[in-house]
């Protein structure tokens, strides 16, 4: 499915979320995310009724100092945009079965849900939260914490945190085999991205790794008694799914919440989701004439396309 319509329409869901609980069902995707207005068209997120807009406290000076780099006053933009760009990358990656949504209150906290479609954890729907260090991108790798600790060797049975660090020992470091020293900044920083963390979070459920587990019990069981492990996993999946409709753990208007399928609400939304074609914000017909091309694909010669294209 096309992610674009998905994200765009979800704004709407986000708006409704406060009054009517959304639910789950087969078409989980669309309610997985309330508004992510930012990417692409960056539309103004709708503000849920129960959301209390943050008031403006701190002094400008304090903020300016936080900026990374020489131009303090613009610093915040960089972080905002870096995260926005990371989020855009996530969308572009079209990660299978993973949906995330930055929180209303902080761009450093993303809500997510992952759908496991086959394997040991098949049918699992795990909600999680991504915490991005606030010195991003200079800090360590983001943390992924499952709302309910999934029974998994790499998931802390108490906190629900996934061991991400093992996969990203050096966050933002030079990828092995690469020696791009020409421009340290680009080369160094462009490697690790949040989507990779999400991808990793998904992979973990398909390829079980028992080395240095956070949940030794799970690791031992997997190695020694797969059957028992499997049944524990099934229990865990059931547990998670049974809490699917719970109120979100965090009181955030953009937190992902599930509600049962309500045709009155969701059919229309689904419809719109599938029919939506993204366009520029203030696109109008006057622009039609733009975007001309008579270049034959594969050619770099102007006017190489068939001279008389089929006329309407």
């Amino acid at each position, binding site marked *: 499915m096309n992610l*674009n319509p998905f994200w*765009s*329409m979800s704004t709407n869901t986000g*708006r409704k979320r406060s009054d009517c609980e959304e639910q789950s069902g087969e078409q989980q995707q669309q309610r997985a995310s309330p508004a992510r*207005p*930012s990417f692409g*068209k*960056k*539309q*103004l997120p709708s*503000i849920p009724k129960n959301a209390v807009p943050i*008031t403006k*406290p701190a*002094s*400008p000076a304090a903020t*300016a100092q*936080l900026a990374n*780099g*020489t131009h303090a006053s*613009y610093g*915040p*933009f*960089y*972080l905002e945009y*870096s995260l*926005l*760009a990371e989020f*855009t990358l996530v*969308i572009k990656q079209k990660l299978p079965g993973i949906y995330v949504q*930055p*929180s209303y209150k*902080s*761009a*450093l906290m993303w809500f997510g849900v992952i759908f496991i479609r086959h394997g040991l954890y098949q049918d699992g729907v795990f909600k999680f*939260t991504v*915490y*991005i260090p606030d010195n991003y991108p200079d800090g360590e790798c983001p943390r992924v*914490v499952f709302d309910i600790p999934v029974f998994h060797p790499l998931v802390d049975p108490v906190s*629900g945190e996934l061991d991400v660090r093992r996969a990203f020992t050096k966050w933002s470091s030079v990828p092995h085999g690469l020696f791009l020293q*020409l*421009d340290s900044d*680009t080369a160094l920083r462009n490697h690790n991205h949040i989507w990779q963390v999400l991808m990793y979070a998904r992979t973990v459920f398909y390829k079980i790794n028992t080395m240095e587990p956070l949940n030794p019990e799970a690791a031992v069981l997997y190695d020694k008694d797969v059957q028992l492990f499997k049944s524990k996993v099934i229990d865990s999946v059931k547990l998670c799914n049974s809490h699917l409709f719970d109120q979100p753990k965090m009181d955030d208007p953009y937190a992902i919440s599930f509600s049962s399928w309500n045709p009155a609400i969701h059919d229309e939304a689904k419809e719109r989701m599938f029919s*939506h*074609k993204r*366009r*520029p*914000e*203030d*696109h109008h017909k006057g622009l*039609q*004439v*733009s*975007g*001309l*091309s008579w*270049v034959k694909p*594969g050619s*770099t010669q*102007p*006017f190489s396309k068939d001279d008389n294209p089929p006329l309407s």
Partner: protein
Amino acid sequence: MSWLSRLTPRGPEGRSSRNVAPSSPCTADPETCLMVFENHWRQVSWVLEQQDPSSSSDDLTAVRNHTDQMLCLLAEERPGECEGPPGAVTSGNVPPIGPILDLVVSENVLERVVQWHLRRGLDPDSQGALLKLFEMLIGQSQQPLLQHKAVLQPLLGLLGACAEPQLGCPPSLENSLVLLLNQICVSMARAPAVLELLFRSAPAQHGPTNLLIFSLLVPFIHRDGAIGQQARDALLLVMATSASNQGVARYIAENSYFCPVLATGLSALYSSLPRKIEVRGDDWHALRREDWMGVSSLVLFMNSLEFCNAVIQVAHPLVRRQLVDYVHNGFLVPVMGPALHKSSVDEMIASTTYLDLFLRSVTETSLLKAFLRFILMHRHDNDTILDTLLTRISSNSRLCMVSLSLFRTLLSLNCEDLMLQLVLRYLLPCTHVMLSQRRAIRDTDLYGKSADKFLSLIPDCCRLSTATSAEREEEPALWGKVLNSPSSESPVHHKPSTPSRLALFMRQQSTGGGPCTPSPTETIPSSPGAGPNTPLSPDSPMHPVPEGLDWESGYLEYLRDARRGVELCSWACRNWSAPYDGEDPSPNTAPLPPPPPTSNPSLAMFPEHFSFQQGGGGGGSTSPGQQRAAVVAAARSEWSSTERDSGEWDVTIGENSCISLTPRTKKRSLQREDVHLPKPLHLPPDSASLPDPSAVPHLRSAPTKGAQQAIINGTLLGGQGDRCRDSQDGGMEVKKVKRELGEQRHPAGGDSSQNGEVSACPAPAQSCGSLQGFYSEGNGSGAAESSRGLPPHKPSHTQTPSASLLSEPRTNSSNDRLTLRAAASSPGSGPPEAMLFNQSEAVERLISELLDGAGPGEGGQQGPGDSNGQGISIEAFTQELRELEDRVRERSKGVGLFRQLEETTRDPHSGEPPPPSPLDADLMGSGVVAGVVGVLRPLGQPSTQPYTGPFMVVLFAKLENMLQNSLYVNILLTGILGQLACYPQPLLRSFLLNTNMVFQPSVKSLIQVLGSVKGRIETFAASHEDFPAMLKKAQRYLAARGKVDWADSPMGMPTLRRSDSLVKSRKPSLGDLILRHTNSPTRARHAAQLALAHVRDGGQSLHSALFRGGSGVSGLEKQAEALRVKNAVYCAVIFSEFLKELAALAQEHAVSMPFLQRHDTEE
């Protein structure tokens, strides 16, 4: 707007309105009407049956009277009860016709009447009467008539008579004829089957012209006034009706002259357009609708062009294709091509402006394609039109501005073919980046590093004033809302006071910038930015202007604009054939782009010095060292000759790429030579400083030809060296030499040429010096460094204005010119003008503040663009000039004085005509850059040298020279670069916006150019104590201007399709409107006053201190200095804004989502 949709309602309306009166008496009783009709008919037919050919005039009168009555009755008759669908002629479902019509058909009444008239010879009087009768009948009839042969045949008979050569249609009847034809077409549009009838049932004798109505209409296509409009409307209806009729379309295409007449008519109309566009206002650069509405010849042309466009929109593909071909081959190539290559600057300006206007007016893709094809592919004297246009950018007059404006229009088309030719093909091979960097081409500015780099280039001296207002305006809105603690429930530690406010930011974007507040209940996912309650687009001029000094309204605005720009651009480019990401098309298979052209002057205005140098290195007979010395000498000599002349050079490029440099003044003074001292005769005999312009060709020819030809970037090589050498002694020969060079492709040719030629400044000497240092450094970053060395010298390049001053009086005598005065633009702008007056009080105050000490500037009212308004006469000026020259020569003994001298000599010139001058001051950078590029190329890698193309080179050159550019040039220029930076293609994006990219040393990057400009601004600021104050004033002035102009904006933009027909180059708050109100009295006055502001500004200038003792010069000198200061201060303002814009673009690219390709179904 669709022409057709405008048309269609017309028929019914006209009809119903006319129905009212006549229908009342007869509605009574159909039977009575029939009886009356029969009665009339009896009497008419009695007359008709008289076989006597010489019927009396009584007969005629009787027949006419009765016919009038009869046709009135016929027209008013209502059809019988309709059982079948009306208008279904060919099927059997013809509605029952009324009894009168029945009688008309059965007795063939009309045919007999018409034949009778024809038999007895049709005098104009009765011909007119018949035309009117039929027009009334067809226009007002209550039932469809034309499908009846009994109506159609006599009508065609009558029309056929009108088409006959011997009878024809007297001019007095043309109106009636066209009206009748128009009515026929309207009816036909309602019942398309009639077309087929008309087409088939043509009288046999008319053979090829068997679509009579058509051939009768064609001659009126280009007519002025209502008659032309009616004819065009009618033709358009035929076109639309025949769009699906292969036969008719083939007839039109093959048997009618429609397409050739239409297309070549454009040529004829074009030839009557004003050759000179005379404008007041130094910011004028493009024709708006209100500009041309007052110029009848332009209106005529535009009507026809719009008609072409409309025809292409509705006509059958056959017709469309033919018309497009004719427009290309019958108008663009034979007329537009030569027009663009006219030799006088005025004509170049006019033709460029026209082309821009045409491009903005054409909406049909296939017609646009013809234009683009012409521009990109057609070669006129071996150069594509595009090449020619590119060279114009580097000129330093209004020609530059109109050319920039044209390119802006072109870029706004987002046309792949164009972008390919302009930029992308040069970037495709990826030779401009280091091999290891190719993978980075697709990187976006994920972490704001590029943005940070751009912002870091804002000169410190420009930050001062922004700091305060930024704090005041931005901080509370943006930075203030720091998130205290994200969420207490957070199980993971979360540092409080994290600066992350993504969501907040998203929210504030809308509020931060003004009225763009999407409603929270917005449910349409696709229209987020401009919600239902926000009718204004984000960049709408209606944006409330925040009070105070916040014209620099902050980064958010730029982000918003950048997002919109990137989004629209990538949407528009979604159907391009390739992503241009460094992999597709593959760099390895990409054809090598054309090398820096050797015959194209656009890249190098005077790079000969450098290529010369390189040529030596490449195997010349002289050692490089010697050559370098020679170059320096040459440059110096040029320089010294410059002292005498105004320092301007005309570059003339002959057929064989030989460039001759002619000092501008020389040329101008040719006709006065016998009166005044011919400049060349003053030349110091001293050979080390060859003063004669022709010395340049000479010097150039020194190295062996072979060496010259090996030059990569060399613009001017070729076998012309010998000839050029001929001209080496004696400037008197310059003219002759130029003739010798053969047909001059370049406009600089004639004596009549004015200030717009591609002209080279004497700067080479300076840049050469710095270049040498640079050269030895041999790396890319050196470029910026070396050019940074330039600023102190730069001032000397503001000399140009004199050119325009001197040339203008002469051109004023030209007959046909288009004068755009404030009044000329009045049609649409009267009210705004008034508003402007009302609201200009504050502005006025600001201006006077800005100009304090400038004295009563009322003299400036005269319109700065018009040299007539200047107080100083040419004579006086020339006199002064000569005095100055003498003085200068005395001082010129010491080489060390060069710089000083240069300033002395030039400033007097430049001080003269303030308003045009700013435009003129900006030429030289291009040459420098081209030279740099040439020099930088490592030797021995001839053809694979990275070369980013003439467009980039010339834009960067222009940009590098920003400090000397006029405000308006800078606005246009940065606007174009901003537009380029919106393009999502990674190749282009990385080239412009990725500040981390490592390019090949010979490739100059945008960031380098910007760094160089920054350096110059800082140097300038450092040398002017009151820079901060001036900066502030400039900002306030621009902000005030913006407000005034915004007040006008409700009047709306010209109704041209692309609403941004006016350049909105900078921020709306800044640039949009500076350019909008081209004829604003306020601005005119302001510019004029500024010109007189020398008293204050001159006082601080360095050079005036040097010459404090000088007697007569001070006034002019100070004016020049004032101008220089003004340009520099405005440049500082624009520069800072431009950097913000670039930074915002870099950031927005990182977060933009690509559009899916080719899902155009819903369009």
